[in-house]
């Protein structure tokens, strides 16, 4: 195909959008709607995943040091813990800290009825262990991490919230499967919808396609304007969907950040930041919009080219 022919067909495809106003509008509407749905589902899924991560990070593994651990042992244990993989952070809790914590906790029970139960256990009488409170990175590998921690010098035993960890791991897996499953389902549904829309749109123009064939146009010649038209519609839809999803997401972020007190505002820090997703979102939208629109309509005319 010559360059001028290519230019002509491209122009043709673009001007078809303006010419078939009703159908272009409708197709853009459908495609935008589908991209928005899938985008919202993906963002929700990302956020729930991150929320579960956050819950997981709240749960600490406690590494109890031997009762007779001296400062040098503590220091070397700290170093050793720093060398264990899959660990996010660790905080040292001394024997005194542990006792004070326990005291304040017991005195809170039943209006302080047992507030003095632990009097006299201070100093060398302190029966509690010094410990490191460790947060792990990937909860699903917590068993290995705990095993490694238990082997470190100076460590007496390791207390892992293994039940909770198991729960969180399975919750996260469920959320992952469920969430991305939902995204996949919505994306599939969108594809069905878009495919059908494009088929109807092309069907409405089968006469035009037919005539072109009889004038001696090759399939490629007929397809190119449809490809251009579909791609342009896909890109427009992608831009619109990106605008809608971004606007909504920023709106939600603002609403949450303004929620002030309580549970909702604490959510704010677990929400996936807009800056970290927009480029991915836009990229995925543009690419899938262009592919669906362009390839979809070019492929849909196949059955009408058979004359």
């Amino acid at each position, binding site marked *: 195909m*010559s360059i*001028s*022919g290519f230019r002509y067909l491209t122009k043709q495809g673009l001007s078809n959008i303006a010419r*078939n106003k009703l159908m272009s509008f409708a197709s853009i509407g459908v495609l935008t709607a589908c991209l928005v749905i899938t985008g919202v589902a993906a963002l929700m899924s990302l956020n729930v995943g991150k929320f579960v991560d956050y819950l997981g990070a709240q749960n600490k593994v406690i590494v109890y040091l031997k009762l007779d651990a001296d400062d040098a042992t503590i220091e070397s244990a700290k170093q050793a813990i720093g060398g264990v993989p899959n660990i996010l952070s660790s905080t040292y809790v001394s024997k005194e800290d542990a006792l004070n914590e326990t005291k304040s906790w017991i005195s809170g029970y039943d209006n302080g009825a047992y507030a003095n139960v632990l009097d006299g256990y201070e100093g060398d009488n302190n029966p509690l262990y010094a410990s490191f409170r460790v947060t792990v990175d990937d909860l699903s590998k917590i068993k290995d991490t705990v095993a490694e921690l238990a082997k470190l010098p100076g460590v007496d035993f390791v207390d892992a919230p293994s039940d909770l960890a198991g729960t969180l791991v399975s919750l996260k897996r469920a959320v992952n499967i469920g969430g991305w499953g939902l995204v996949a389902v919505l994306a599939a549904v969108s594809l069905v919808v878009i495919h059908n829309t494009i088929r109807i749109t092309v069907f409405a*123009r089968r006469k035009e396609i037919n*005539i072109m064939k*009889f*004038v*001696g146009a*090759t399939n490629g010649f007929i397809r190119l304007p449809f490809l251009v038209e579909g791609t342009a519609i896909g890109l427009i839809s992608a831009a619109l969907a990106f605008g809608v999803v971004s606007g909504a997401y920023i709106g939600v972020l603002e609403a949450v950040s303004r929620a002030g007190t309580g549970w909702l505002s604490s959510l704010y820090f677990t929400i996936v930041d807009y800056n970290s997703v927009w480029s991915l979102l836009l990229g995925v939208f543009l690419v899938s919009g262009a592919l669906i629109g362009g390839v979809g309509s070019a492929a849909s005319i196949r059955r009408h080219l058979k004359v």
Partner: protein
Amino acid sequence: MIEFKGVKKEYPGGNVALDDFNLRIDRGEFVFVLGHSGAGKSTFLKLILHEEMATEGKIVVNGYDFTRIKNRQIPYMRRSLGVVFQDFRLIPTMTAYENVAFAMRVTNVPERRIRSRVPYVLNLVGLQDRARSYPAEMSGGEQQRIALARALVHSPPIIIADEPTGNIDPELSVEIMELLCAISKVGTTVVVVTHEQELAAQFHQRTVYIDKGRVVSDSCPVPSRPTFLAHGTGEASR
């Protein structure tokens, strides 16, 4: 150029539109095809165009043997044909100009050539003013003439016209027939399907009668040089 040998066409419903149909049209010939409504005239043209496929028999158009033609050759075969369809088949979303230009674009003719040739052909059918109109904005006769312009514009070796004057008044019909005659004189094969026997009779050309899907008569042209020609050629090169 066009050869039908023992062609049978049976439509899916069971209608046999052509049966043992034999016809040979050579380069540069001008042929009228006459016949009653439903005789099979349009079917004959549809077979030439590979719009429908023969149930039996052999068809050769411009060297393409349809029993052996490949799908990707069909567009090139069609480009050697200029067709005026009975139902016009103009692209409703294109202007008259674009509809005509389209037949050149598919063959990658440079834009410069299109810009000079299309107005010339529109002028030939008397529709230079309607270049910017869409088919729906034109009268029946105007649409028919646009279809004719599209068939002529890329100077194909074969021109096929199905009732090209069905919606056009007598004077204009004669003008258009003269135009087609003149074109055939320069080596183009022209096949005109028409039910206007009297119009055909004026031109003393080879006339094929089709009835019930068969060629029932194939009369040779009167040998004497017809009188209209001087005038006709003048029209065509105007």
